[in-house]
């Protein structure tokens, strides 16, 4: 392993030198000098490196500066254990690929050495100390190390970058286990001092900077986690871990790196191919449906009269499963009551809306984890994952999962998979529960707050804002803008059969907002007076398609035709790497009978006796795909981006939720 590293390292370091004119002299020398004394305590080097770090963060002027900064920031990282050359090499990869994204996103924060701000915030210390108390020896090292790392390279807000550090850290505990504890403390001190020394560099913090800081902190946290986890895993099988890390390295964008990266790239490609989510269950595949039926908890009969075009989607008789399931409430042994309850709520439609469903599911899993005890002769990691999977399939039977829920489940499973083996059961459970809490808090609650702050800047006095259906983020935006005293009018467009807009209308009118209510057919009538359209979304796909409540596409299309800007508000955890071109291939079918009955309109009962006719079908689609050309802007927790930047977010931040 060592030998191989030595061969690959040198050219990569040279790339670093290319990027940062003042760095190369220091770097190659270090790489050459340190391979041999890998066992020597890293403390000796660290002061030097630390003093380097503040000096090397240049004030940003434009993109190229950004590049430089990116290249330099990782430099201090290897300091605690300079023998780990690969760190640097990986960073180089990061440098190459991340910078374009920065520019693409347009959200690249000013580079006024945010590292010191981290300290001021107190976040870092908290994080590191948590790691200190919670984790075992090696873990402790990792967390504190990540903390240090965090400070020196806070600037880079993408966690993906931090992930690249995994490999070196993995190597660390084996070689360093004894020394780890020893060097942790000085590490922190040193970091503190370095940060304080950088402080004078920046005078004022703009809003953008603060945001950058926030993101950086989040990234840092994620990095810290990542370290600990990888440490745990690596102790068991360090060699196998190697390719897994490689796959995560993004493709190098810098042309210099191409030649010697080819091999790596190929393996990355392979890994990435594996990474593509498996195709969804197609319900026109008879044999698979039969198999799935055998496993199913929910006893459902398929709807008889189905639309030919949507055979690949599940459709069941509604209303039949619920009483049956309710009666089984006390008999279902393997099912946890919390899960069961949430499942029933999905089924009955009591919980709807992407965020609400996600939170309910996570909280149910939290309950499950709290009540969980590993059966004898089984490992927590595997058993719990299997259990979660079975719960997920139960949820799917109750109502097909939304894409955001898929993302969330992936997060949870990855957390379970990455639990350090050294953890006791209670430790593992506590850590998972804390992870879930943090996910809810950061990815949903805080993300919404950030979105609201962004979106409010787009609301002017005298605006007429149109929204469709009921999106909780949009509702919060409207209420917040109202609180700020902005004068605007709201148009709520609603559609059958759910008529969610009525509930929203009631809440908004109750809060004193001036509202106009209409149905989706009248959208082109009302669009004349509208100045902005705010829409929520169930998921944003990586080709920029917005996958959302059915009718969103219609509203966006009409707004586009009338030259009204369409703003999509969506948390980044709902971004998904899939692509969709139409609303047919992937969708969800609702209860068809909801169509034939019009509540409150007794006179409309034409279809009462027709629902069982052979040539009559009712189609109640739940979602549609809005083409990206209709979307002016997507407001997400990473800022306001055009739909073309969605793949960037998915690629760069998409995996972040996995190591929050």
């Amino acid at each position, binding site marked *: 392993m060592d030998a191989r590293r030595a061969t690959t390292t040198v050219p990569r370091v040279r790339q670093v030198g290319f990027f940062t004119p003042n760095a190369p002299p220091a770097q190659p020398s270090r790489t050459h000098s340190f391979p041999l004394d890998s066992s020597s305590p890293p403390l000796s080097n660290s002061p030097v490196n630390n003093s380097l770090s503040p000096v090397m963060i240049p004030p940003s002027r434009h993109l190229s500066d950004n590049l430089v900064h990116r290249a330099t920031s990782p430099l201090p990282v290897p300091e605690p254990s300079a023998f780990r050359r690969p760190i640097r090499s990986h960073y180089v990869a990061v440098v190459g690929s991340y910078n374009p994204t920065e520019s693409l996103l347009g959200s690249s924060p000013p580079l006024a050495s945010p590292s010191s701000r981290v300290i001021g915030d107190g976040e870092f210390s908290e994080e590191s100390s948590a790691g200190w108390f919670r984790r075992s020896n090696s873990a402790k090292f990792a967390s504190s190390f990540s903390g240090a790392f965090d400070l020196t390279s806070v600037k880079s807000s993408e966690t993906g970058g931090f992930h690249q550090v995994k490999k070196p850290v993995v190597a660390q505990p084996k070689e360093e286990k004894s020394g780890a504890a020893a060097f942790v403390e000085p590490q922190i001190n040193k970091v503190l001092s370095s940060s304080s020394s950088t402080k004078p560099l920046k005078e004022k913090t703009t809003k953008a900077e603060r945001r950058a800081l926030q993101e950086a902190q989040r990234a840092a946290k994620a990095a810290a986690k990542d370290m600990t986890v990888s440490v745990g895993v690596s102790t068991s099988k360090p060699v196998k871990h190697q390719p897994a890390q490689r796959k995560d390295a993004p493709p190098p964008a810098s042309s210099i790196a191409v030649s010697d990266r080819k091999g790596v790239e190929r393996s990355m490609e392979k890994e990435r191919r594996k990474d593509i989510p498996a195709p969804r269950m197609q319900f026109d595949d008879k044999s698979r449906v039969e198999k799935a039926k055998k496993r199913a908890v929910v006893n459902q009969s398929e709807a008889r009269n189905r639309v030919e075009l949507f055979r690949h989607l599940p459709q069941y008789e509604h209303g039949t499963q619920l009483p049956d399931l309710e009666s089984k409430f006390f008999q279902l042994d393997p099912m946890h009551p919390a899960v069961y309850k949430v499942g029933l709520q999905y089924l009955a439609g009591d919980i709807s809306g992407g965020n609400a469903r996600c939170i309910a599911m996570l909280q149910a899993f939290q309950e499950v984890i709290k009540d969980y005890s590993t059966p004898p002769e089984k490992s927590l990691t595997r058993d719990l994952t299997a259990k979660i999977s079975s719960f997920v399939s139960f949820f799917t039977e109750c109502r097909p999962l939304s894409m955001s829920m898929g993302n969330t489940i992936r997060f949870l499973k990855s957390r379970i998979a990455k639990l350090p083996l050294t953890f006791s059961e209670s430790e593992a459970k506590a850590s998972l529960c804390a992870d879930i809490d943090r996910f809810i808090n950061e990815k949903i609650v805080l993300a919404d707050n950030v979105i609201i702050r962004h979106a409010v800047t787009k609301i002017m006095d005298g605006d007429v804002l149109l929204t469709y259906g009921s999106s909780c983020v949009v509702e919060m935006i409207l209420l917040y803008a109202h609180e700020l005293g902005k004068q605007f009018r709201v148009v709520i467009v609603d559609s059958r059969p759910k008529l969610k807009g009525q509930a929203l209308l009631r809440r908004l009118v109750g809060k004193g907002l001036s509202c106009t209510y209409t149905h989706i057919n009248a959208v082109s009538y009302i669009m*004349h007076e509208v100045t902005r359209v705010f829409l929520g979304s169930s998921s944003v796909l990586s080709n920029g398609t917005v996958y959302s409540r059915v009718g969103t596409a219609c509203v966006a299309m009409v707004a586009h035709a009338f030259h009204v800007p369409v703003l999509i508000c969506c948390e980044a955890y709902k971004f998904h790497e899939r692509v969709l071109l139409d609303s047919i291939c992937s969708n969800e079918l609702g209860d068809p009978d909801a169509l034939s009955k019009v509540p409150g309109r007794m006179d409309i009962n034409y279809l009462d006796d027709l629902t069982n006719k052979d*040539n009559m079908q009712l189609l109640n689609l739940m979602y549609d795909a809005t083409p990206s050309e209709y979307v002016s802007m997507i407001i997400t927790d990473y800022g306001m981006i055009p739909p073309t930047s969605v793949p960037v977010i998915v690629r760069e931040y998409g995996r972040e939720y996995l190591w929050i």
Partner: protein
Amino acid sequence: MPDVQALVNDFLIKLKKRKIEGSQATARQAAELLRSVISQQRVPYTNQAGALIDAVRAVGEQLISANPVELAVGNIVRRVLHIIREENLSLATAAIAGLNLSAASDGDDDDDGERDEHTVLSAAAVAASARSTLRPPSLQTLLEDMPESATIPHTTSSGGDSEGKSKSADKSSRTRRLKHDIIEAVNELIQDITTCHEQIAEQAIEHIHQNEVILTLGSSKTVLEFLYAAKEKRRSFRVFVAEGAPRYQGHLLAKELVARGLQTTLITDSAVFAIISRVNMVIVGAHAVMANGGVIAPVGLNMVALAAQKHAVPFVVLAGSHKLNGNKWNVYSVTQKMFGIPFSALYSVGVSLCSLCPLYPHNPEVLLNELRSPSELLDFGEFSDCLDFGSGTGSPLLHVVNPAFDYVPPKLVSLFITDTGGHNPSYMYRLIADYYSADDLVVRGRIASGN
């Protein structure tokens, strides 16, 4: 006469209360009403056509003001006026032709005929001018007119005492014949209106092929017949019906289609965009067709048309000729009523009928619309507590908008299928010139202004 007035009032009340649904039913009833008005109208000895026109116009004005957005009524009124003029003209030209013939045969010069000659001359001039405005400017009429106007002065320098007698007898017969002809023509019009479905449906086979997927929204009898006609001819296709909230006429259409054995799928209006990528053709009915080829259609169709355009799906509008009429002018009168624009401003534009008027009415989807009851959208029982919320100024916080119609601009319409065949939107103005006389279009506005 009193019974006619009762009929008129009855119809007016129906219109005002929006009891009559659908432009076809309205058109037919309006035509029947006008027919009875004509038959009851006592015709004076001279200028019968003028009297009839005045009577029809008076009734028509009431009808139009009863429901200004039901454009079919105005169209029928105009159509009937046009019929009266045309019949009058054809009689007049026939008489003149007869006169000319007799004058030529007499061949004598008479001093007595001076006065008579003058009247005949003016009648011929009127006929010629009216003809040129009414008839499409075909090569034949152009050629015909030239020698006629040249020959009239000397050939009609005849007309003796005998002629005067025969003429009066001729006139009395003409009176009866005029009324008779007009009622015949109105009957024909009613016949046309009732059978326009069939005539449109006959063309279905040319437009619907096997395995087609057709989308429609709301309910239209014409569409139903059209689809059924294609099914009759053993084409198998499926129909997606958007329900057309808040009136849910789509449910009705779906029911009818299912009863007739068509493969029907009912979807929500919001799913139109999702579905349209798999649709081959959109076929809808219209409320009225504007002179520029724009369509006043049931609410929601603009959205469908936009989606169809996005996916390059043909958007076909079925419209009987009673719909595709001089709505442009009707719009003026409505505009005027709403905004009190002096008519003189519009008049000057209105005269230049055949040049497609560049002064197209602003915002037809707002001006030519009708806002229906909010109770179709919101249950007052549930929202009664919200409805009386008021900010300090007393204006309510909650508004409910429930328009009945959409305006589909001509660029979104691929084809009109009328009872006279398929037409491009850009051709509509020409059809309108065929069906209406320019006089009525303008006069309609003047009456409205006087109102």
